[in-house]
């Protein structure tokens, strides 16, 4: 990730929306003790370094200010790892359906 965003780069900013202590009444203590934080992506309206306050224009044309946290945001969620317990469960079920006397799709072919 670049340390500096240029004007027009697609970036992500972060803003504290409610400080700890300003949170909704009745939230659990662990939530009440941390701020409500927002992240939004958009095009940088000025040059900025990571951690700088910056304004961005979102894809619908809204201007949002916040601290620059990402100069080149990435979708990094993935499929995780194969889970052996799940693979085994599937294989066992397939074996059960191959037992003699079990009706299977295509038996009448």
């Amino acid at each position: 990730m670049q340390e500096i965003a240029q004007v027009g780069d697609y970036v992500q900013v972060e803003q504290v929306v409610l400080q700890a202590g300003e949170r909704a009444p009745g939230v659990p203590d662990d939530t009440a003790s941390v701020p409500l934080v927002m992240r939004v992506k958009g095009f940088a309206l000025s040059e900025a370094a990571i951690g700088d306050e910056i304004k961005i224009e979102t894809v619908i044309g809204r201007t949002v200010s916040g601290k620059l946290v990402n100069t080149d945001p990435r979708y990094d969620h993935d499929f995780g790892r194969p889970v052996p317990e799940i693979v085994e469960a599937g294989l066992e079920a397939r074996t059960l359906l191959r037992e003699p006397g079990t009706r299977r799709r295509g038996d009448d072919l």
Partner: protein
Amino acid sequence: MSAGTSFAAVMSRRGEIISRALGLDYSRFERGPLAFDYEGMMEKTGYSLEEVRAIQRDVGVGYTPLLELRNITELVRKVSPPGKGARIFVKDEASNPSGSFKARRAALSVYEAQRKGYSGVIAATSGNYGAAVASQACLRGLDCIIVQELFDSRMVGQPEIMEKGRKCEAYGAEVVQLTVGPELFYMMLRLLEETDYFNASLYTPYGIAGIETLGYEVAEQVHERCDRYPDVVVVTHAGGGNLTGTARGLRKAGADDTEVVGASVDLSGLHMASDEDFNRKSFTTGHTGFGVPFATWPDRADVPRNAARALRYMDRYVLLHQGEVFYVTELLAVLEGLERGPAGNTSLAAAFALAQEMDQEEILVVQETEYTGAGKHPTAQLTFARENGVQVRRGDPAENVPGAQIVIPEGPEQIEVRDFSLDRMRKSLIRNAVRHTGVEEVSSPEVDFLCEEINRDRNFVTAALCELQVAVKD
């Protein structure tokens, strides 16, 4: 921070913001402190079933395939008593444009927004509804903002919600991503106030009328193929809209005797607004954290009167463990060749157990699937669970502990549903209605209203009111 954007200040403007963002006058349906004219609201502000079908057809929503799960049915019969094991069908809602049944709700909401002249729409949702609204908004040329609860305070995102956010962005929406907390609604109000966009709430009459076509199609498709209506339809239950709309659609098709079963993943013990619990959940919807509170007090939603009122329609409510739902998600993939879910497969897990109670000639319909993808997949959720200290192992699913242990069944015979008392939820709804309105006595028409709200007789309602020391006027 200025006084204008403090939590209390924004919430105090809630009524006017929501009213402007819906263009809908709910006050004309109020009938006293407790009661309102539910059917009147649905008729006068919604659309007829024919209109809904036309609107949805125009944008490629609905008319999804009904698939018979023959291999899963065969597996059910292997573990059922002789003669038992109903035929299981699934409505493949993943084939809607945005990958879930939520497209049906969004099609109506966004149509309504456009008809009323709004230039954009906003929805506060961490679920499939976001992508559904974004998809419908872009095809109608409206701007769209989706507000999500995504991160814990470490800024670690729930993988399933990250995927849903990505999908919203793919449809050109702005996605506002927040840390854990119920202030999602507060943020939505601020954005509505700033933009003057339409509140594409899940809980308007449009949001519910859009699902009636799903129930109607289920009845129609089963009748066409099997010459009878389904005996049981199982619905994954969270906010109540899916169950309400489906049940209403079944009735509109004439399937009056079909039993409607709600199914949720049991996440009891985890607090829905807790920063620490947030990433210890492996299901972000279809769970008891929404299912119980929304059924027992629907008017907690982002509209004055929630059109999703599950207790009016629910004949039975059953709970599943997380491990059971992951297990049937795997069965659906490797036995039927359908990679779907996992959250939407809560009803499939319930069906696997419920079919064992039913005769082989009977028909059970699982009324939705949802698309699967990176983050939104058992491997993604289970990998994430392990990284967050949750143990994943084979064993007896009854040993499941939400947030600590996910137990994948050792065999199909271990999948069981646990009934959650509907009468307990009904009493809870009455208690909530009394508490929220502060009434000390209720009129006879209000008793009738409560009877409809919980689908029970006057004796039940008056006994419950009596327990709360609320008098019934003649």
